[in-house]
């Protein structure tokens, strides 16, 4: 099945209706497995049990960036390939990405409380995520501000791509602004510093959250397609009624029209 086949919304709806239950089931199983493994992971010698927040926090943070990547590809789809489902994908992804980003912030600040003594520290990593969150909200505001989705799509696509180019710059600037942050520990040059007992549950959780995103995204895309159908049906209804009622008034006021014809 190629992307061209998926361009037909009806076929997309039919296909996703079959795929979604399996995706949801896989998500639930992997999440359960990941949480079980995470509960078995040993406490950190410094942080104690609070380190387990990591198993939720890190996948959310990864996804907050992955979703922007997905939206960027979808935006290219809108602007370059003009794929009819691209802007549906982009629009549906934004609130989900914002939610993951919000959860990353929330868990980060809960994690920070025992470590820093405050819920919030202007730590470079958290601050970058906060800016990403603001950009998600801005994008959602843009989608909401324009009533006609096809008009909003191009503006949102441009903003998403500009954001994708700017995000590394923002990240770099924030790092420079706050040089007091901890060095990145998972994806570092020269291999991971994380112990295997942490790494495996973390990877399982990351996969589970990615599947969760896929499930939610497909469901949200279905909703968006249906919402647009309702919209176009309503617009059709608005014009259809006018037509039939004009026929009605025409006959009712037939005498009036004859008089006008006479003058």
């Amino acid at each position, binding site marked *: 099945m190629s992307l061209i086949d998926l361009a037909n919304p009806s076929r997309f709806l039919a296909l996703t209706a079959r795929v979604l239950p399996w995706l949801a089931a896989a998500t639930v199983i992997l999440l359960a497995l990941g949480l079980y493994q995470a509960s078995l992971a040993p406490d950190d010698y410094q942080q104690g049990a609070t380190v387990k927040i990591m198993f939720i926090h890190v996948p959310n943070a990864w996804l907050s960036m992955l979703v922007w990547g997905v939206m960027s590809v979808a935006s290219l789809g809108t602007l370059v390939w003009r794929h009819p489902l691209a802007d549906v994908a982009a629009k549906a992804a934004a609130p989900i990405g914002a939610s993951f980003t919000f959860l990353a912030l929330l868990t980060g600040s809960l994690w920070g409380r025992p470590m820093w003594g405050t819920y919030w520290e202007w730590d470079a990593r958290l601050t970058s995520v906060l800016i990403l969150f603001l950009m998600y909200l801005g994008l959602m505001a843009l989608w909401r501000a324009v*009533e006609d989705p096809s008009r909003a799509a191009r503006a949102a696509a441009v903003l998403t791509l500009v954001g994708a180019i700017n995000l590394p710059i923002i990240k770099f600037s924030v790092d420079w602004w706050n040089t007091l942050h901890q060095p990145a520990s998972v994806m570092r040059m020269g291999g991971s510093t994380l112990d295997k007992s942490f790494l495996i549950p973390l990877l399982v959780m990351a996969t589970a959250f990615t599947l969760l995103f896929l499930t939610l995204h497909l469901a949200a895309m279905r909703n968006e397609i249906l919402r647009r159908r309702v919209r176009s049906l309503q617009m059709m209804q*608005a014009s259809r009624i*006018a037509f039939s009622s*004009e026929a009605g008034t025409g006959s009712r006021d037939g005498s009036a029209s004859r*008089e006008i014809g006479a003058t």
Partner: protein
Amino acid sequence: MQLSGRGIRCVRGGREIFAGLDFEAASGEALAVVGRNGSGKTSLLRLIAGLLVPAGGAIELAGGDGELTLPEQCHYLGHRDALKPALSVQENLTFWADFLGGERGDANLSLSTVGLDHATHLPAAFLSAGQRRRLSLARLLTIRRPVWLLDEPTTALDTAGQDMFCGLMRDHLARGGLIIAATHAPLGIDARELRIGRPA
């Protein structure tokens, strides 16, 4: 009921549009204001509606409701429809009925008269220009006010819509209402002509 103006002078942006204008209209009578572009047809309607202040002269309504001012007894149907695209057809109409107050008719009946009864729950954003005009007409029907000030009322209406509108104006006159319309096209009902400005 008698609406009359004596020696009205209208100045806009430092330019005199017209001066010494007299007019009279009684219950059940329609007055068609005609004149070339820029002769002040819209200004005259807005003067009566209290939306402009005359530079001279006076406009008064004799025999109306003594408690109310002239603008409060007028319906003004201008070029702009006063509709909010985010609200539904029904919400737009009931808002004006609630806000303008006074004696009111059945909103649903008005909507079906103007041919919008099956679109009541749809956002006004989905309406065409003609349908928006019809919704404005439903406001005139729902809230009872004796004086109708109509500025190019038939714009955007199709033939069937114009017929419907002629019927509405006749009903209004028959109920003792009063219509003053600025128009280029024939109004479609018997109306006395009031020519303002130099002849075209």
